[in-house]
């Protein structure tokens, strides 16, 4: 118990006395260079338009939408791990929820940028919002694209607020723990005058738990909605009722994969071994395995319904197996599900390096899946004239790498300046248990 209390106290001292400045600067330099690539790609895009990408008819959705779904899916795991496990009274989540939620915020930020950049005229993105305008028109509310705007915006706002009210008590504790005036002011402003009054705690708990309770169905709705971008279109390979649950589970899978990678990395870099124990790695391995196998079931169900439907559906399915994009189909199967099988054994689940590598593999595999779903369905339409393969360009890859840089930059700033683990919840758990 005392070891955990000391470790929680150490979390509050991390920002003023950062234990791994060199490792942090190396990571941050790498992240900043990728961020520079992001800015260059966006500047080039604004100057030259989406023609710099490989997107063309018939594959009009290429990288931007595939990456959008990939980032958003990663984001969902943070909310699930924090909100769902809070409601189920799983105390071990307290060591993971803070940075998993931060991951959510930054992943959703990267995701939200993609559809905006994908617009031919990104500076008119506010046309998606319903507002009184001189053109006298409204958004088409029967279109999944408009649903998307509301879903992602709501998700970004709710996950930001959920993360922020969760961090307020720790900012207050860090304010009282800090010695230097500049840290006191920094944490004090963030803590909004929190003083741990019992009546405040009671209302805070009501608000926190209720937000958690509504955040879980929100996650399901947001990613189901994303899947309707596909499933509501009359395109073979897309129009399928299995898509909403299949997408939600795939999202949770890719997100838990990234949470596993971040956990292993932070545990090593900041020496958080007392708070993030082998038990946590074990639990993450179990979660990864469970969501991964559910995603595999989604693959099987999708395959079965396509084969059962026959016609163009089955043609698309077989084209995925042996067509020009077969590498992305078999790549998704290989990276998603083959290394994953090691997690059936506890011995492998508690090996940090291995968990990191399996998470990386699943992250790559889930990216390939999104690419496969998009491109292999679009590149051959009903007409011979609407056939054309998709080739990503340099700017496709550079913007993708750039968003990874944006994510890493934001995440590293969070790690450097804020309490990465929910110290007050760890203390509450340690004193109660």
């Amino acid at each position, binding site marked *: 118990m005392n070891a955990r209390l000391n470790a929680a106290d150490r979390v509050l001292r991390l920002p003023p006395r950062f234990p791994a400045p060199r490792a942090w600067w190396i990571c941050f330099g790498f992240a900043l260079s990728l961020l520079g690539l992001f800015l260059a790609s966006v500047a080039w895009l604004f100057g030259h338009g989406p023609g710099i990408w490989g997107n063309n008819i018939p594959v009009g959705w290429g990288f931007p939408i595939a990456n959008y779904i990939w980032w958003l899916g990663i984001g969902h795991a943070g909310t699930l791990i924090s909100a769902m496990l809070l409601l189920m009274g799983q105390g071990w989540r307290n060591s993971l929820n803070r940075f998993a939620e931060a991951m959510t915020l930054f992943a959703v930020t990267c995701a939200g940028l993609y559809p905006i950049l994908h617009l031919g005229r990104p500076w008119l993105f506010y046309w998606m919002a319903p507002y009184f305008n001189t053109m006298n028109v409204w958004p088409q509310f029967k279109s999944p694209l408009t649903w998307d705007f*509301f879903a992602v915006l709501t998700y970004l706002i709710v996950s930001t607020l959920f993360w922020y009210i969760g961090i307020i008590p720790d900012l207050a504790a860090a304010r009282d723990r800090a010695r230097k005036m500049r840290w006191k002011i920094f944490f004090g402003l963030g803590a909004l005058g929190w003083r741990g009054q019992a*009546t405040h*705690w009671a209302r805070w708990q009501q608000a926190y738990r*209720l937000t958690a309770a*509504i955040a879980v169905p929100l996650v399901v709705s947001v990613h189901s909605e994303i899947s309707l971008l596909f499933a509501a279109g009359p395109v073979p390979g897309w129009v399928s009722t299995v898509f909403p649950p299949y997408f939600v589970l795939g999202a949770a899978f890719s997100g838990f994969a990234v949470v596993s990678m971040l956990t292993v990395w932070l545990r090593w870099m900041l020496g958080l071994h007392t708070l993030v124990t082998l038990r946590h790695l074990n639990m993450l391995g179990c979660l990864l395995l469970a969501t991964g196998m559910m995603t595999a079931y989604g693959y099987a169900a999708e395959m079965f319904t396509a084969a059962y439907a026959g016609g163009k559906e089955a043609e698309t399915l077989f084209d995925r197996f042996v067509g020009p994009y077969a590498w992305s189909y078999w790549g998704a199967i290989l990276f998603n599900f083959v290394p994953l099988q090691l997690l059936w054994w506890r011995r492998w689940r508690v090996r940090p390096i291995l968990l990191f590598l399996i998470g990386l593999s699943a992250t790559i595999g889930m990216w390939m899946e999104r690419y496969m779903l998009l491109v292999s369905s679009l590149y051959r339409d009903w007409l011979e004239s609407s056939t054309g393969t998709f080739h990503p360009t340099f700017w496709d890859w550079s913007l993708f790498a750039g968003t990874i840089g944006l994510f890493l930059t934001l995440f590293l700033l969070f790690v450097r300046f804020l309490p990465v683990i929910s110290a007050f919840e760890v203390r509450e758990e340690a004193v109660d248990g």
Partner: protein
Amino acid sequence: MADTGRLFAVLAAFDTPERLVEAVRAVRAQGFAQVDAFTPFPVKGLEEALAFRDNRVPAAMLIGGIVGAAGGFLMQVGTNLDYPLRIGGRPLIAVPAFMMITFELMVLGAVLAALAMMFMANRLPRLHHPVFDADGFDLSADDRFYLAILADDHFDRNEAGRALAALGPDAIIDVRERPRS
């Protein structure tokens, strides 16, 4: 520390949450009404001991959710009536297609209302509070759980001090408001 300001509260510090909860019960049994506590993390049983009952946050959430859902649905109905797009004989008011945005705005309304009510009922944010001036007040400590008897019009410092001293706390601290200069 300003010793001249109006007395805000008298604090008694305890080293464990259990002792704090017991002390809260004891003080309330003696008839002190304005009792509160300051703790570094939520303490189980403290709400019951303080007889805390306030359902404004859940109520705000319910109302916010209803307003959000109704607003979201009516926005879609209204705009479709304002600029009708009749396509393929499909219904203008397509309820199933409107449900996604209705749901999202219900969630948004509920969460915004609940959090706004939480901050308003707690009178937060604020830059300063008298209790921050109390000696040793530190939310990062694990062994400081404060019982507070708040000063009201009929407050008697000596009576409160005696009641608190009888509980054997680690320290008794007067909290004064800063005099306005």
